[in-house]
């Protein structure tokens, strides 16, 4: 590739032709500020609409200032990123953006974690000239089961639109209208609820301001905790323990399982359980279904649909219900771990401690915003009483802990409660892309072959490439595995399934890039994919530490089947742990 030489702030640099000034400057250690540009390098995700104009720089010989995020380097270019002209222009641009932005920073849910606020601080903006004359555009607020849209705070960076359309191929959001009224909205500016939104929350995780945030369920949880008539049970998803620490200043990838457990107990939860237990249970059910369908398929049974698709991810479930309803018999019927946990907690466990399910409140801590919607689905309730009452995100939990004056960093590690807090390493790795199918392979291999698995780590299933494939040898039977994370990648595999070209026996799909560790409810990564990689490494480290690493070896899972469920796939298991899917294509209607 051709290399070219240029000068940025009097420093010479050689770059490949096609490199933008912004990236070249980064290589020189010059951190040009920007509001709209964002790159998740390891996932190949980039947003550069050159919309915010904060990143402008002076290029010698060029009349106007250049947006560095989208201007390519030329040989001999002389760039100044902090001349008087640049700094004044940048300040003016920022003042214009702020002139049409609410000034309620004190009470904004993004306060302290807002890129716009940080930028204002960084650029030293101390007043907004002419503000008293400036009109501000206002927009109707929209609250869906998972996501709040407050478009008064939108700065049109269009990161959400890029995530929704290019990465996720959901197409729920688009830039609409023009000029002052321009904003990002679903079709016909309807509420998100009536769009094709999957609630994956990737828009929320990249929004630089408070325009897109999660629905806060902490007040409801607090009320339940203070209600003496309620037994409050909490479950924590695997991806939470490797990210929660970030909210308290710990390095990305810090594992805070023990401290999180202690903090939850300090918050007043009666039982601190683990979604990983339900993940192990998921493997028992989903793994059984996989082997059943696979063996029937191999025997030539045409009713056995292959490939089987995982169904743990609620964003993914929403996606195929909207876009591939014709394939709704392809995914596993196993409920997600969150919902399996709720169903078992409010039946088996409620019986065990002798209370009515109506007196139990199940709270889940999730890296996910779609889980909020999932737990509200009608099919996951009994006589109007939901299996999981409230789902709060990692970010909400962190805020809750801070509100409760709990110094999490100095808490002593504590263990989960038994019996629904016991899990294996297989349950832990659900949090990273490829983890569910690896966990399934660990169990399915031993059940199918009747032999002990020598090599527990299926490293060929790990990684960050958007679509991955591997063939696992089940003692002579080659099982073709496909993995996709990010819904755009899932769509590619689904299109193959629809056209009958898919060679896979089993496919794992996670809606969010990186899997749950990159979920919409996680601490904000602000465009740094190293953070997501560090969380993945932590997930696998946590797995290695576990004495048991295969779901079917979990003694409490074995006990649960002995005492209550019978065997995997039994009628009772089907009743409690399996679900069905809906054709939501017709739901995309114009509400007026």
């Amino acid at each position, binding site marked *: 590739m051709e290399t070219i030489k240029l000068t940025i702030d009097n420093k010479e640099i050689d770059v490949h032709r096609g490199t933008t000034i912004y990236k070249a400057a980064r290589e020189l250690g010059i951190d040009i500020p920007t509001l709209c540009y964002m790159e998740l390098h390891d996932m190949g995700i980039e947003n550069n609409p050159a919309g915010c104009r904060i990143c402008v720089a002076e290029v010698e010989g060029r009349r106007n200032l250049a947006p560095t995020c989208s201007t390519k380097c030329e040989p001999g270019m002389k760039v100044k990123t902090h001349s008087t002209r640049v700094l004044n222009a940048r300040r003016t641009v920022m003042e214009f953006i702020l002139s049409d932005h609410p000034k309620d920073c004190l009470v904004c849910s993004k306060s302290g974690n807002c890129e716009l606020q940080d930028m204002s601080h960084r650029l030293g903006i101390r007043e907004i000239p002419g503000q008293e004359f400036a009109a501000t555009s206002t927009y109707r607020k929209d609250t869906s089961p998972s996501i709040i849209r407050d478009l008064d705070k939108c700065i049109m960076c269009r990161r959400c639109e890029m995530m929704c359309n290019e990465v996720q191929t959901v197409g729920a959001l688009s830039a609409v209208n023009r000029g002052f009224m321009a904003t990002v*909205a679903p079709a016909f500016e309807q509420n998100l609820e009536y769009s094709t939104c999957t609630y994956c929350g990737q828009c929320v995780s990249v929004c630089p301001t408070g325009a897109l945030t999660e629905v806060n369920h902490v007040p409801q949880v607090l009320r339940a905790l203070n209600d003496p008539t309620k037994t409050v049970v909490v479950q924590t998803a695997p991806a939470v323990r490797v990210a929660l620490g970030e909210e308290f200043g710990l390095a990305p990838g810090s594992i805070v399982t023990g401290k999180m457990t202690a903090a939850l107990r300090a918050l007043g939860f009666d039982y601190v359980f683990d979604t990983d237990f339900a993940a192990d249970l998921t493997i028992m059910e989903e793994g059984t279904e996989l082997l059943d369908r696979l063996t029937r398929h191999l025997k030539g049974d045409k009713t056995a649909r292959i490939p089987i698709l995982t169904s743990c991810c609620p964003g993914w479930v929403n996606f195929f219900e909207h876009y591939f309803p014709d394939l709704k018999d392809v995914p596993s019927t196993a409920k997600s771990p969150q919902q399996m946990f709720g169903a078992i907690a409010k039946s088996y466990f409620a019986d065990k401690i002798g209370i009515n399910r109506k007196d139990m409140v199940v709270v889940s801590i999730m890296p996910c915003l779609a889980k909020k919607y999932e737990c509200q689905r009608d099919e996951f309730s009994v006589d109007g009483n939901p299996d999981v009452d409230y789902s709060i995100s990692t970010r909400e939990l962190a805020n809750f802990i801070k509100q409760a004056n709990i110094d999490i960093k100095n808490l002593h590690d504590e263990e989960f409660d038994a019996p629904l807090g016991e899990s294996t390493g297989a349950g832990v790795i659900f949090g990273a892309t490829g983890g569910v199918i690896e966990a399934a392979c660990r169990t399915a291999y031993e059940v199918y072959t009747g032999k002990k698995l020598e090599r527990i780590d299926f490293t060929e299933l790990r990684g960050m490439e958007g679509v991955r494939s591997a063939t696992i040898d089940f003692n002579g039977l080659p099982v073709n595995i496909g993995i996709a994370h990010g819904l755009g990648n899932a769509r590619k595999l689904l299109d193959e399934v629809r056209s009958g070209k898919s060679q896979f026996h089993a496919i794992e799909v996670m809606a969010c890039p990186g899997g749950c560790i990159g979920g919409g409810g996680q601490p904000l990564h602000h465009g740094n994919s190293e953070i997501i990689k560090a969380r993945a490494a932590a997930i696998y480290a946590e797995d290695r530490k576990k004495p048991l690493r295969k779901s079917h070896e979990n003694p409490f899972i074995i006990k649960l089947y002995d005492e209550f469920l019978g065997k995997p796939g039994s009628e009772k298991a089907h009743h409690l742990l399996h679900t069905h899917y809906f054709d939501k294509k017709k739901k995309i209607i*114009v509400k007026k």
Partner: protein
Amino acid sequence: MSSIKIELRNEDVDFIKATCSKFNSDPQELINVLHSCQEHFGYLPAEVQEVVSGHLNVPVAKVYGVVTFYSFFTMTPKGKHPISICMGTACYVRGAEKVLEEFRKELKIQVGGTTSDNKFSLSSLRCVGACGLAPVVLVGDKTYGRVAPDDIKGILKEYEK
């Protein structure tokens, strides 16, 4: 946002399909397809946009984004007699604002609106190039010059048949 819910007839859907096919169902041709559809239907109701979205494989939010970006596209049906008032500089200084106000009062609709009997719709535009006749009003293809607020009732009467 349109407040009219319409039921597309089969032949309407067929027309949209045929239009998309004419442009090879190429997503890049979205604007051309919308042009043809607006010419045919007179406007672009949500239902038309949804069918276009399906056939071009473009999210309906994107279609709506394009429709709302270009002022040429409209989601409200135009009346049988579309009225346009020139608000260019010359017309404006000679009282176009008052003329517009009179139309609004008489028709009881806002700019961009259509009367409930679908007879008239009201819009403003910038300079029709007849500044000597300012202020200028267009009703359909007919041009009225030197219009005063007192003339409005008379103009509307011409179309009340």
